[in-house]
């Protein structure tokens, strides 16, 4: 079977977006987690 250019182009674009989004979402979530933890600790003090 020949290389399916259309399928793998669509897939590659989707995969790249997926990887970038996973990385950036986790990064943002960690920042929120740290900020929120600080806020909760301050409230407890």
């Amino acid at each position, binding site marked *: 079977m020949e290389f399916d250019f259309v399928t793998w182009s669509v897939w590659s674009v*989707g995969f790249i977006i997926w990887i970038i989004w996973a990385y950036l*979402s986790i990064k943002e979530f960690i*920042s929120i987690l740290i900020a929120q933890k600080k806020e909760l600790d301050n409230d407890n003090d």
Partner: protein
Amino acid sequence: MSPIDIIIVVAFLVLIFVVGGYFYKWISTPDDFYVTGRKLTPFILAATITATNVNVYSFVGQSGTAYQEGLSIIWHTWTGNMALVLSGIFIIPIFRRLRIRTIPEFLGLRYSQGFRGLVAVIWIFRLAFWLGIGIYAIAIAAQTITGVQSFTLWVFVLTGITVFYTILGGTWSVATTDALQFLLMLGGALILLPVAMYAVGGFATLKAQVPAEFMSLVPQSGDFNWLFLIAMVLLSIKWATINQDVLQRAFSSENVRTASKGMVLSGIITTPFALLWILPGIAAKVLYPDLTNFDNAVPTLIVEYFPPVVLGLMACGLLSAMMSTIDSDLNSIATMFTSDLYNGYFNIESSHRQSLTVARLVVLVMGLFIIGFSYLVPVLGGAVEANLTVIGILDTPLFVVAIIYGLLWKRANWQGAFAGYFAGAFVGVFVYLAGDQSFSLAILSSAGAALVVCPLVSLLTPPQEVVKANTIWDAKKPELEHPDDVDPFYIVPKSIPGKLAISASIFGLILYLIGAIVGSTGAVISSYLAVGGMFMIFIGGLVRIYVK
């Protein structure tokens, strides 16, 4: 489904249960529960908007329609994406600046508390019915894919988990599990496309085996022809500007620019993903040409071609798609009931604790309601669809009075809004029921009636107090943003790149509409014009959110 797949699905459900429940201690005020204390950042926001937007209907319903009608159903998603971008740069900044939690709250600010209450009640009913149908659909899909044939088990497990974490962590749980579910859902779609294409022998083979019209993006005839493209973009703009469950996510953003970024990025990223579930639907047409239930197109492909482990992951993706929509809708209902009705009418001076208790109780009651309603869906049959259609028609006059007149014409008053809304609703429902049940015709008639009646009645009745309209008009300027906000977001940008960006988006919309109209002649260029227009909207939106 093999035992390893069952283990994967159970592990996924436990993970969602634990992650969702974690956020209980983050909730101390109603704003934490409704809008994450307005702390969401751009990429998490885009993920949660996308997860709310994409659901089982996308994977099962749209791919089923692609099986039956061809590629052009993809505009159902793509017009929604275009609308998210346009709403993100033109409308959302105004709403976010007003610091509202719900669309009815905006109607209260612009028109009257009575109009706010009315729309809140309609929206609560609308979402409750939709949730019952959603749970029914996901329970049926879960049975097909996992082989665990117990409707009751799936309804109780999926509703139970979703209700549990929404009660505990409100929007924090919803947004975080949505982000996780977004990754699983799109991960599942990434598995689906190559498997489907491998099964059919590749894209070229697929294209050779279906009629040319089937692969046309702007067909001249059929149910999803060039006219569908025009109707869909109007419906999508309406959806992206007044739909509570999507917009509530944007209201949770940390500032105005983040709200805009979340909407624009969500619109852009979903675009390539739509092909991941539409093309497999068309592949199923070649593989299983005689299916009687088109919605089984992709589930049949999944069950036949997916090996163990991959099948388990795909099942998690599908469950994610629906759970992320259900939790958002539950949260929206709780927010509207508590904010617009309980705090608006029954207990205006309620404490944070009282409001939170009511919001959580609403989620619990709604959970019980949707469990009960999911059993009624097969009994009610066509009545459910008719009900949803009627409720869908009611949105059109709401869009006219809330967005078109509410944001653009100061003289519009609450009498005009009420009259326009009811006239549009009456005409739309009448045209739908008395005619040949054409949804497009009903929508257009409804919009036409509201467009005429609202200004007429407004001009025949006394003007509304200036302060109401001024509150909204002031929100078009960045002065209402937080004084410390060093990055104000102008709807009409100050910089040349910003001006060029919004011009590109507007030109893109015009190009898209030209493409759709040219599609009526059957010219091949129509697809290029429509897709080119869509890309111009995206490029304009992307530049706009990053420049002054």
